[in-house]
């Protein structure tokens, strides 16, 4: 499977995702944001980090870059798109995903391992997970507080577009296990066609037992499936 990772000035999880993709046997290519053409790819990843320093609004300026037009085109043609953390923020700024990521409830950057629950496992991104499976995945962000209007929230529920929710060790999605104030504990969502996934947790950080765990592996193997 061919993948492309878009690199913006200020992206800083680009190497991490590339390492993960290569480890999972993707044929990966890095694409600098000034390029005007995307290499042929089955998967496009917009990595985490602080594109343009997260100045103005996180993801806003990257959302205006040249290459984004190509990403939008590819998305409309059905290419798989994965936005992690800052990538998720960029996807909402471009409109490929709806809603916004506001400042964390407590206005502090949060880095920790959190539990998330697989809500929809019937997608290209999640078919190797079990439904309601609880994963432990690292988060690291300042603006991960997902918000959307009630109409869209209803749509997310009706069409099963919520990918992951923050939960506790037993799977309950209560307020205590919501690290950043996200609406209904939402940690990741799909678009209607389910070819785009945006998520705040970092699956690429969870592929190696020496530094963490391997709960992120199945996201990549789902894609290969």
């Amino acid at each position: 499977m061919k993948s492309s990772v878009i690199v913006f000035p200020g992206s800083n999880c680009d190497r991490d995702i590339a390492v993960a993709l290569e480890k999972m046997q993707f044929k990966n290519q890095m694409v600098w944001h000034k390029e005007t053409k995307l290499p042929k790819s089955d998967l496009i990843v917009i990595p985490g980090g602080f594109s343009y320093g997260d100045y103005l609004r996180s993801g806003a300026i990257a959302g205006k870059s040249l290459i984004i037009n190509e990403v939008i085109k590819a998305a409309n043609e059905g290419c798989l798109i994965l936005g992690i953390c800052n990538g998720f923020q960029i996807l909402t700024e471009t409109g490929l995903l709806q809603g916004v990521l506001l400042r964390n409830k407590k206005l502090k950057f949060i880095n920790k391992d959190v539990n998330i629950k697989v809500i929809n496992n019937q997608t290209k991104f999640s078919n190797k997970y079990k439904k309601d499976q609880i994963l432990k995945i690292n988060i690291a962000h300042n603006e991960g507080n997902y918000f959307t209007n009630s109409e869209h929230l209803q749509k997310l529920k009706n069409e099963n577009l919520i990918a992951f929710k923050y939960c506790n060790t037993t799977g309950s999605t209560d307020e205590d296990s919501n690290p950043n104030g996200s609406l209904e504990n939402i940690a990741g969502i799909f678009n209607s066609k389910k070819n785009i996934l945006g998520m705040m947790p970092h699956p690429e950080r969870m592929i190696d037992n020496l530094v963490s765990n391997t709960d992120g592996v199945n996201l990549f193997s789902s894609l290969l499936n």
Partner: protein
Amino acid sequence: MKTITKKVIEQHGLKLEEYSTIKKLLKREPNLLELGIFSAMWNEHCSYKSSRKHLKNLPTKGKQVIQGPGENAGVIDIGDEDAIIFKIESHNHPSYIEPYQGAATGVGGILRDVFTMGARPIALLNSIHFGSPDHFKTRSLLNGVVSGIGGYGNCIGIPTVAGETKFNSTYNENILVNAMAIGHAKKNKIFYSKAKGLNKSVVYVGSKTGRDGIHGASMASAEFDDDSEEKKPTVQVGDPFTEKLLMEACLELMKDNSIISIQDMGAAGLTSSSVEMASKGELGIELNLDKVPCREENMTPYEMMLSESQERMLIILEDGKEQHAKKIFNKWDLDFVIIGKTTDTNKLTLKYNNKIEGEIPLDALASKAPIYDRKWVKKKLTKSKIDLKKLKKIKIEDALIKILSSANHSNKNWITSQYDQMVMCDTAQKSGADAAIIRIHKKEKAIAVSVDSSSNYCKSHPLTGGKQIVCENWRNLISVGAKPIAITNCLNFGNPEDPKIMGEFVECLAGIKESCEFLNYPVVSGNVSFYNGTNKKNISPTPVIGGVGLISKLKRSMNHQLKKNDSVLLLIGKTFGHLEQSIFLEEIHSILEGQPPEINLINEKNNGESVLEIINKDLVNSVHDISSGGLIITLAEMSMGSNYGVRIDKPKKLTDLFKYFFGEDQGRYVLEIDRNNLKKVENILKNNNVFYENIGFTQKDYFEIQKELKIDIKELYKINNQWYNNY
């Protein structure tokens, strides 16, 4: 033009005698620009005029040392083609004035020191000291500093993996913010600042120059007084985004052979970088200040030369590489301007509007800068009159809880969760352990890193204190299974013109030297920060040690968290019950008296090496060194956050339980050993003549000292976390 009066000289932080020397060296009066340059180069921060004489005594060589002090950072050899480059630096005064930006730019500055030398930074550490928790400024300073450190490190994408956080009223008016950066480079691809060759292009890259921090370096070398809050324009704003671009651009240019030498613009900006490069190369340097990219209009040569705008570098390029280099910097949207060339004049020549605005022989700025042999006096040691029997009665359990819920001994989660500790995906052990472990990317080996200090020990007995911090740092690396290799140090002291303070400095340094020599633990880089204090009130001496060790094959990370039920707990090292200067007396009885525990370097080394041997043979489940708070705090830390607690027998010999459990005797560790490994471990310890005791075993859920106390470890964990959560 402004005439140089006595007042002007003083404003530049120069003494009148120093001004006479300047005139002698120049054989004329300097103009204002030249005076500014002298003041920047001759102040404590750049010239090390009070400390140099004593720093020379430190051991700086070793089999694994590639570059000792004198460059932007120290370099050590960790085998194969790999080198580790690291340094620590203070940003105390700026952080007190504007905590967020001060701390952030401190991180930015130390990162540049490391990537200037060709290393990709792989970890950040910090040592932060605040006034007492109930001082009215402490809360906002703590908040600002922590978010500043996080703000910069998180944005640039380098994990902040370890540090130390302390509260003590000695820092009420002068906090300490020391930042350490560690990078990885190829041994044969290290870049130095020494210029070579005539007529080579001198290139300015990075951000534009603004009026920030003009006189910042002089500020860092002056005591605070009441109007220091007025020194506002000197505050610099950090731009981690630009630094990220600068780092990537430099590392990209470093892939081939375009660079002759490179130097970041740190304190005293363009002045110190150009002077250092040229004087190290025994060349001259000529700068055309018209070419300097400026952020503001009408900036004067004086302002350009003394600006401390962040995120800038100076590079000397090989002939014909200009276009190639320019392309790279343009790709990263950074300024790239040739602003001068190397010459054979041995002078710094500054041109503006086709006129020479200033010209100074380089040796006057560097090798002939003043060096002082400041008067110093030995510390008068005070005898302690503590009579333990007369102290207020307290239960062990209550003392334990009080210490665990104190600011200094609380869990630092509140801080460390604000730092991205995992980015780069090589953090094998995060904050919370004795040392952090960072794997070398795509390799089996890893480094362990830790920063340590103990101002109470250093205050009461500078020599022992100096010895002790090096040992504690060494112990922390051992505890995670690393072989300690070398250290960097940040020496935070008061006013060196006071012989007592100078004495603290000299004696601490002698202690550091003694330990480093004995443990074969050389000093490869460092930083001195004097004048920490306000209105003649100096801080306690606070040397901070940052150590790096090597784990040649990382199979799993070793830490202090108890792993299994019913394993045996061994206490390594002799317990005498030394309570003077202990946390117990300070926190529980508000007594700070007497001397710190003695350091026995022979036992220290022997115990440590034996523990390392046991770890390397995979015979141990967890290890924790014993430091402030003594045995009981060590055991509590091993239990909290794990699923297992301990069941400890009462001591067989030492009868005073407080001495036994809270004494801070040095060179000790607690090891958790599987019963079936016990024989093997005991054999190693016996063979090596290491004193040890079997003190109990692990159990589920409870922290227990027989017939004394029994507490649920979840409860302990809660207690240990409440201070920050309620602050």
